[in-house]
């Protein structure tokens, strides 16, 4: 066999390996219910429950942040994150968590949020200038 054919076969084999590994390593988007059934880390997509309190008190512990999230099936769960509260967290529209369930809490190792960025949204902030009225 010619050397170039051998090289060609090796290259194709590695290329296939690359592509298979890309999809083999990938995880899935799941729900809290699915997270309870598995020991693996997975992604959970959902929304922040804004009616419940965000627990973050840097004076007590700068690395403890907890909140409640509702997943896409409507199930709510307490989420604990080992770090500081991400910037702009309250304004997030959607959250993608990476982590796993420990007892009844979801321990997130990564939080990714989608925010209505001030710098992207086309919403005119109108400032109405009126004459000052004095109240007494």
């Amino acid at each position, binding site marked *: 066999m010619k050397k170039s054919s051998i090289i060609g076969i090796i*290259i194709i084999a590695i290329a296939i390996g690359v592509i298979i590994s*890309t999809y083999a390593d990938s995880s899935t988007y799941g729900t809290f219910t699915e997270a309870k059934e598995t020991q693996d880390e997975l992604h959970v997509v959902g929304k922040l429950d804004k009616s419940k309190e965000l627990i973050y008190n840097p004076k007590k512990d700068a690395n403890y942040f907890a909140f409640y999230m509702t997943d896409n099936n409507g199930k709510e769960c307490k989420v604990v994150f080992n770090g500081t509260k991400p910037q702009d967290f309250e304004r997030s529209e959607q959250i993608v968590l990476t982590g796993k369930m420990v007892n009844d809490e979801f321990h997130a190792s990564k939080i990714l949020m989608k925010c209505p960025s001030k710098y992207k949204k086309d919403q005119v902030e109108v400032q109405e200038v009126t004459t000052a009225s004095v109240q007494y």
Partner: protein
Amino acid sequence: MDIKFEGEHLLPGNLGQFFIILSFGTALLSAISYYFATVKDLQDNSWRNIGRIATRLNGISVIGIGACLFYIIYNHLFEYHYAWAHSSRSLPTYYIISSFWEGQEGSFWLWMFWQSVLANILVWRAKTWENSVLAIVMLSQVFLASMLLGVEIVGTRIGSSPFILLRDAIQGPIFSRPDYLTLIPDGNGLNPLLQNYWMVIHPPTLFLGFASMVVPFAYALGGLWEKRYKEWTSAALPWALFAVMILGTGIIMGSFWAYEALNFGGFWAWDPVENASIIPWLTLIAAVHVIIAYRHSGHSYFTATFLTLISFVLVLYASFLTRSGVLGETSVHSFTDLGMFGHLISYILGFLLLSVIFLVIRWKEMPISQKDEETYSREFWLFIGALVLALSCLQIIAFTSVPVFNAAFGTKIAPPPDVIAHYNKWQVPFAVVVAFVSGFAQFLKYKNTDYKKFFSTVIASLIVAALVTAGFVYLTKVYSNLMYIVLTFAAVFSIICNGRILLDSLKGKWKLAGSSVAHIGFAMLLVGALVAAATNDVISINNTGVGYGEEFAKENNPRENIMLYIDEPVKMDEYSVTYLGDSVVGPNTFYKVNYKILEGNKVKEEFNLYPNAQQNAKMRSIVASPDTRHYLLHDIYTHVSSVPLQEEQEGHEHEHEGDHDHEEEGYDAPVAHKVSVGDTVNYKNGYIVVKGVNRNATIEKIPLASGDIAVGMELEVINKSKKYTVTPLYLIKSGNVFDFAKTVDQEGLKLRFSKIDPAKNKLELTVYQKPAAEKKWIVMKAIKFPYINLFWGGTIIMVIGFLLSIFRRNKEVKTA
């Protein structure tokens, strides 16, 4: 109904739009003229001359677009959407340049600008290649110009113009008012993360890199088109090296910006946008190597052509990834969709098809050698090295394209939990192979080599490399992972091999210096990246905090943020760290953090860092940027993770009704004092002196009738050296009693002239005080990056190597 709007400046926009149309037209005319100049074998140069004029006009109109856009942003003409969306009045002039390319349209303009500069250089320098190369470059310019058109053709909008008016871009009831502009006092402003000096120079460099990739592409395609199969390689080589050098510099600048201004704690995050810029860089590097192999041996012609062509197609693919919105939430800094999805795809497909068509119709004529390369030849290993680079690139493409795959087939594949580990699994072995090949290939000759001599040199180098690696690995503590040791070994081997060549070249074979310098730089970059990424160490470990369950601590990292109260030193690693206060400059608050190394009671070393954060009281959030202490062998990188939010400043004066004594929010219980002129009243931080009484006080906007009484109590508030003068008022109007309190915000005071007691001839002064301020604090994270200077230094050396190679290959073009 036509509304006559007031205060709009329509001239710069109309002029700019005219230049856009002109640039599109001239690009098209130029491409067509050069096309005919190439295919028609005419004696006169009429087609070429039209092409030249059109190319020049195109350059002028592109500059015209830029000038109009700059005028609009510089003069804060917020009737234009671009100025409103990307700038604000408070923006310093030098960041107006960054706001220029915050939006897609501006960055397209930047690309167009560089492409037209390159086209004009080619008109001047390309000589016999002018016709075919410029036909292709100007075709690319046609596509770019069409991205800015923003005109509607049969119901669909083609491109997005930077000169669109705000009232056309956004629907809103206020735009039916003729004076709507008076309601828009300021623009949205520039993303604070982009307000960094690296953001002024990183995009132009990166886009010059992207733009210059079209030149080798055009030479390769022109070579196939004009059947000048061999010639194009020598003409394209300096351009390919130039593109690789500039794009590489641009990528590293972006990496440096991420390190200096973003707080994700690193210089490379495998973010899709970063990947998008490195993909074409890797393929063009591979192309450069096989072009050289072909020129010296006649082998690998197809690979050289293919890699050169695909590199530019991948530039277009990269811009599709970042600009079409397809990446969605997988990337932090991609652009949002501007409705150019199909348009971008047509750009990619257009150039992909051109490449495929020419490769197919010229397939039979291409000088593809039928013979195998010798194993002990340089061209063989150049080829192998290029293939490995292409594979490494393929892995990045496959992974980055997952969102594209999801969008195309409706699947929902999520990235792996640990993205970096996935990349390392593949990229580290690829890097090892590339480093080894770039080392020993230096001792091989073209065609064939005496392998006995070759092995003796390589084995000697391997032994030296093994010794150096052992020492280095011990020093940098990367022995935790076998792959890290192997990569270090490979990189050290490459440095030693190339170092030997460099020493030889100093003795006379100086023209080989370029490649060995570039290889040394690349190997240093690998080692620097490896050590800094593998052994960076969060030193701000919290050892005091209250726990939240041992369960959690067991499986998670130690807590990586520490709390600092003002003036209270905290022990962190070898440092004693103290938060000393903050200062406000523009929108940024700088937190002064003092680092000390103590030895006994003696201060061995001391420095201050100023990590900053932009507070946004309205959104109750911060945007933090790090500050870094640079040493020769490591960096101390620090950023704040959380700070107390400042309350929004209230703009209006505190005037309030005075007939009931309810407690004011935020103040301690008030204390009433009976005073006369000359009396002194104490408060927490100082004292208040009653200087006098003004019996003829007037109150703004309240006319006084006869019988009404307005009295002012003139007070001086004194706190150490600071002195404030205020005059609270007492008013009887139509028999009703009012009083107007005054506040001294700096002292947390509110003072009311609450009563007049004529019987005792006394006045009543009621003092409200804010409770003592909370102790200031910050939460901070600090990371130690060891040997990061190898990474930056390697980059600089690599760029110098490219520069030397450009000189060498450019000389070859002239002498050829």
